[in-house]
């Protein structure tokens, strides 16, 4: 079980959980018609390093003039949280037309998932006072979000922040997943 922080501060923090975050799949313009396709993720967690977010916030919103924009971020990395029950059945992306792998809940694969022994996933159980069902971060589905867009969501869509230590655990596992080496069979 993770520990969380409920207090909402102005800046984006590593470990922040937001709800209803939009991911733009594409924007296409043809013959005067513009088409935008987006996916609404019910929950995402911020993975960008907290020091980077702190420096970006200071540079972006401080009234003090800076000599350069060296610390400015272009975007924030996030990863979706899926309902663990949907992950087991492989149906968590069914509403966007994708069928995922079945993970047997009561057998070894399900236990490995809950013990965070599957590099791709991070299983989270929230404290009793946080009414979020057991959830799974899918590191393979990370995406970037405009940081000003995310900041505007803070007021209405912020849920909670994963406390230090627990968020570092997530961050380290994410980094390990990204840096894995694929060897030939």
């Amino acid at each position, binding site marked *: 079980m993770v520990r969380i922080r409920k207090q909402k501060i102005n800046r984006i923090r590593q470990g922040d959980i937001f709800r209803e975050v939009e991911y733009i799949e594409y924007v296409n313009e043809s013959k005067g018609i*513009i088409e*935008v396709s987006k996916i609404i993720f019910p929950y995402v967690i911020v993975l960008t390093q907290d020091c980077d977010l702190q420096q970006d916030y200071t540079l972006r919103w401080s009234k003090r003039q800076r000599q350069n924009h060296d610390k400015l971020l272009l975007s924030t990395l996030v990863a979706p949280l899926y309902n663990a029950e949907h992950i087991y059945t492989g149906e968590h992306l069914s509403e966007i037309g994708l069928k995922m792998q079945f993970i047997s809940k009561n057998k070894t694969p399900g236990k490995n998932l809950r013990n965070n022994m599957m590099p791709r996933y991070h299983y989270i159980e929230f404290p009793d006072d946080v009414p979020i069902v057991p959830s799974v971060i899918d590191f393979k589905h990370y995406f970037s979000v405009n940081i000003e867009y995310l900041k505007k969501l803070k007021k209405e869509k912020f849920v909670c922040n994963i406390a230090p230590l627990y968020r570092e655990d997530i961050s380290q596992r994410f980094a390990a997943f990204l840096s894995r080496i694929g060897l030939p069979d």
Partner: protein
Amino acid sequence: MNKNKTFSSEYIATDSTDIDTNEYKEIEHLNVEEEFDKNYEISKPKRIIIRGKVIDGKD
């Protein structure tokens, strides 16, 4: 709140002013019949496609 309400799969904008990408406001939520549940039950991701006319020039 009707928890069964979801986003419709497609919305065709009738007015190009519906889409404003210059501001970071949520560009189109007119097709939302109901917001996501507030009980923190995690539902599934949903796709929305928006179409609108492009107009030249500026206001």
